[in-house]
């Protein structure tokens, strides 16, 4: 009984699991694919050479509370701490006024707002303006002269030509760092309170490459002292240098330490300023898929994740099945054959699953009655009792025993005939005794006559006659007392 219940439960469980699986697959397909696009710029999501994912990991190891946002709305869900640092490295999309106000509303919740803006172009200037830093990064244009590294940086606003890879010296926490910049701009200082912590020299003219601007800015109606670290190049934070060059890694850590100290700092990397390339659109951006821009293992992982996602294969599969089914149903012959096959299979399956029994009513308990001479009783009940020579002998002996017990005379005694004549009449008594004795002699083989055609008829006849005779002497073959009488005789 228990096994059946276990089986039922197992079947239900399997059915439930399969149903949930189907629901889950449809839901996933409805929701859409993995949706992770490829970033090819200095995005913190880019694990390629020119991404900044290594810096994020480096800082996460040290500070823990390092967040990467892909949308400025995500700022609302990030918890603030005593110090908040907003990091922007080589952004590709300029900040708008609404972007600046979103950032400002976040920093209104923070006691000490810090900004790190490393940009070789004018993309971040709106943000600098919004946080009250009187700094500006001029737009640059690169020219290629000749072959190899013959690249020149041109500043259209000033009409100046700058080297593509100047060596800049930075002083952070009293430590001097000499770092090569990569197609860098410089910082124009318009005033306010500031400190220059990095610069490079071109023909004796110094260009600021790192400035700390201090300003009092109102965020969400609250006045805040904002400290903004501005660098004229984002390349010194890219994976290609952070992963391989200890000086760059040390500079980065010292710089962040100078802002965040040893802890209690929430660092937010703005990943919303880069143009994502959807995986499905990669074929149109083949030029971007180079080892320089993306990490191939990550790219492969993303592609595999996309492929195994139900949204990739489930709709086409259903669509294809639907088409095939429609195709099949369109052909009458194939439909008929399939219907026949399906019906046969269904019938065989159901037949095998079901246990067929012949439906009969339950058998009633049959009363057991023991009979010593069971076979005789059965023959009597069925009317198949056969009487023969031996039965006549028994009849004779019974009547003889009764006569002996009643009169002390046997059936052969002449005196009995006289006695019975008084009860039956002379003729009847004589004929009965004579017949009985003759037939007994015949039965035991003492004589050949009378001729007996059927002993059964003879016995039946003489049972009737004997009953009549015996009844005259107060005995009956039909009564139980006959047995007792015979027993006593």
């Amino acid at each position, binding site marked *: *009984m228990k*096994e*059946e219940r276990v089986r039922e439960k197992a079947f239900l469980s399997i059915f439930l699991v399969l149903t949930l699986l189907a629901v889950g697959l449809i839901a996933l397909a409805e929701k859409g694919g993995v949706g992770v696009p490829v970033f090819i710029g200095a995005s913190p999501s880019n694990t390629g050479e020119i991404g900044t994912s290594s810096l994020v990991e480096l800082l996460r190891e040290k500070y823990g509370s390092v967040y990467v946002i892909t949308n400025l709305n995500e700022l609302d869900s990030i918890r603030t701490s005593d110090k908040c640092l907003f990091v922007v490295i080589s952004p590709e999309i300029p900040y708008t006024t609404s972007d600046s106000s979103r950032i400002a509303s976040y920093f209104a919740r923070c006691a000490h707002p810090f900004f790190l803006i490393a940009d070789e172009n004018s993309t971040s200037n709106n943000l600098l303006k919004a946080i009250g830093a009187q700094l500006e990064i001029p737009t640059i244009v690169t020219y290629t002269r000749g072959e190899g590294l013959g690249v020149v940086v041109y500043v259209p606003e000033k009409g100046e030509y700058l080297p593509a890879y100047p060596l800049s010296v930075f002083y952070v926490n009293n430590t001097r760092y000499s770092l090569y910049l990569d197609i860098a701009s410089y910082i124009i200082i318009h005033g306010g309170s500031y400190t220059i912590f990095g610069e490079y020299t071109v023909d004796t003219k110094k260009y600021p490459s790192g400035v700390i601007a201090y300003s009092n800015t109102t965020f969400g109606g609250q006045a805040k002292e904002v400290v903004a670290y501005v660098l004229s190049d984002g390349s010194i934070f890219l994976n290609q240098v952070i992963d391989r060059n200890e000086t760059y890694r040390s500079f980065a850590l010292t710089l962040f330490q100078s802002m965040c100290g040893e802890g209690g700092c929430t660092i937010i990397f703005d990943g919303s300023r880069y143009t994502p390339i959807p995986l499905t659109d990669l074929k149109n951006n083949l030029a971007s898929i180079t080892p320089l821009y993306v990490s191939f293992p990550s790219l492969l992982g993303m592609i595999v994740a996309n492929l195994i996602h139900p949204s990739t294969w489930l709709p086409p599969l259903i669509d294809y099945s639907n088409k095939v089914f429609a195709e099949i149903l369109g052909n*009458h012959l194939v*439909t*008929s054959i399939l*219907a*026949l096959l399906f*019906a*046969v299979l269904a*019938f065989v399956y*159901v*037949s095998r699953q*079901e*246990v*067929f*029994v*012949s*439906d009969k*009513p*339950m*058998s*009633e*308990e*049959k*009363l*057991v*009655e*023991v*009979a*010593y*001479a069971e076979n*005789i*009783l059965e023959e*009597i009940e069925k009317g198949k*009792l056969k*009487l023969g020579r031996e*039965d006549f002998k*028994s*009849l004779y*002996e*019974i009547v003889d025993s009764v006569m002996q017990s009643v009169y002390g005379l046997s059936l052969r005694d002449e005196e009995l005939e006289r006695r019975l004549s008084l009860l039956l009449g002379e003729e009847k008594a004589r004929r009965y005794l004579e017949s009985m004795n003759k037939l007994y002699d015949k039965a035991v083989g003492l004589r050949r006559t009378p001729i007996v055609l059927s002993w059964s008829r003879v*016995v039946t006849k003489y*049972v009737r006659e004997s*009953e009549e005779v015996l009844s005259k002497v107060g005995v009956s*073959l*039909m*009564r*139980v007392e*006959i*047995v*007792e009488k*015979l*027993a*006593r005789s």
Partner: protein
Amino acid sequence: MAEESIVYATHRTRLTAIVIFFILLTGFLSSRIQLITIGLVTLSLILGMRAYVSYMAASLRDLEVEFEHDPPLDGGEFEVRVVLRNRGIIPLGFVEYNLRHSPFIKFSKGATRGFIILPARSETIIRLICSGRVGRHRIGPVEIQARDIFGLYRTRTFKTGSIAYVKIPPSYSVAVLRRLMVYARSLGLSRSRASGTGIEFHSMREYRPGDELKRVEWRKSVKFNKLIVKLTEREAQQNVYILLDSSHVMLSGPYARTVFEHMARAVTAIIAYLSQRGDNFQLIIFGGSEMYGTPSLMRAARGFRVSIENISSVNFEEIAPGDRVEGLMSAYKFLLRTLRRERNIVIIITVIDSQEYLEALIKISKELIGLRNIVYIVNPIITSYDMVGLPVWARGLYTLKTYGILRNQLNYSRILNKEGVNTVLVSSLDAPFKIARLIELHRSR
């Protein structure tokens, strides 16, 4: 697989499935939506019926069954109630029940098998009238199965309810007991030649304080002018051992009038008589797979009660045709352990049906006689019991046909008597009197 399933499809389902198969096939081949619809609706009906029967199977499995009965009577009728409780919230329809019971007991009224509907959260009582007979009889379990309305599916047959046993003591007529007492005293069979409690006159003497006033002989008292009391003869106490055979042969005869039951009633009357006479007695019932009886010699009401309890414990279902000699020898060994070293009366009530059994009986009888006991074999005339159940017209033929058996039985009795073992042939009518006479004839003096 057939043992594991709780729901079975019947042959009707197979037939219906084949019909559905052809309807659907025809529908698909001819693209007739009506046929397909009919096929699918019928298929749904089958599946629906299966679900319903599956539910019923679960409910039947949890069905509560109890048995109740009135005090049972030997030779009378008593009510047996089968209480079915459906605790479920769904009514159970088309439930087929079948009350299993000992094949040796008969229900004269009410249906032991039938169909019922068990309403939700209900108690249904099936009332049956049972014809009582001596012994311990099984009632239960109840076999239950259910079907759907079309008989497409049916559940497995569940055996529910525990087994109840009805113990029916043998009945004996108080009139028979009175007749026994009068019979024994009128024949002067119970004299002991010593004064005491009894009815036979012993002597007369002057009244002494403490004598019962009812013993004062008023005429003599007037004559002698002093109170004279009449003393009666003390009735002697006797140890009586009764060995009652309950083997398969003893079950011959019609319902409630078998040899065993007749002899059980006779023995009950004798034990009642002995207990009133203050005799010691032990009853041993042998022949079945189990031996019953009083542990040792007992007397009075307690002995009577224990004896009756033992007779009513005989389970006919445990009695199978087998080695009767072994049963007899086991009873004999048990008897030897409790037999007192006095002049006891040992009465063995059994049917002798074979030479082997006869020899065993002669052997143990002689051994008991050797131990100074008085042994009597009471031999019931077996064919007379079968005859009772026959229609009158068939009895004559039966007498003829069984004459040989009777002759053999009489012959065995003669052999026993020749071997010095007293044998008495008894019938249902005179058994108690004959046995009482045997006891009184040999009462110790």
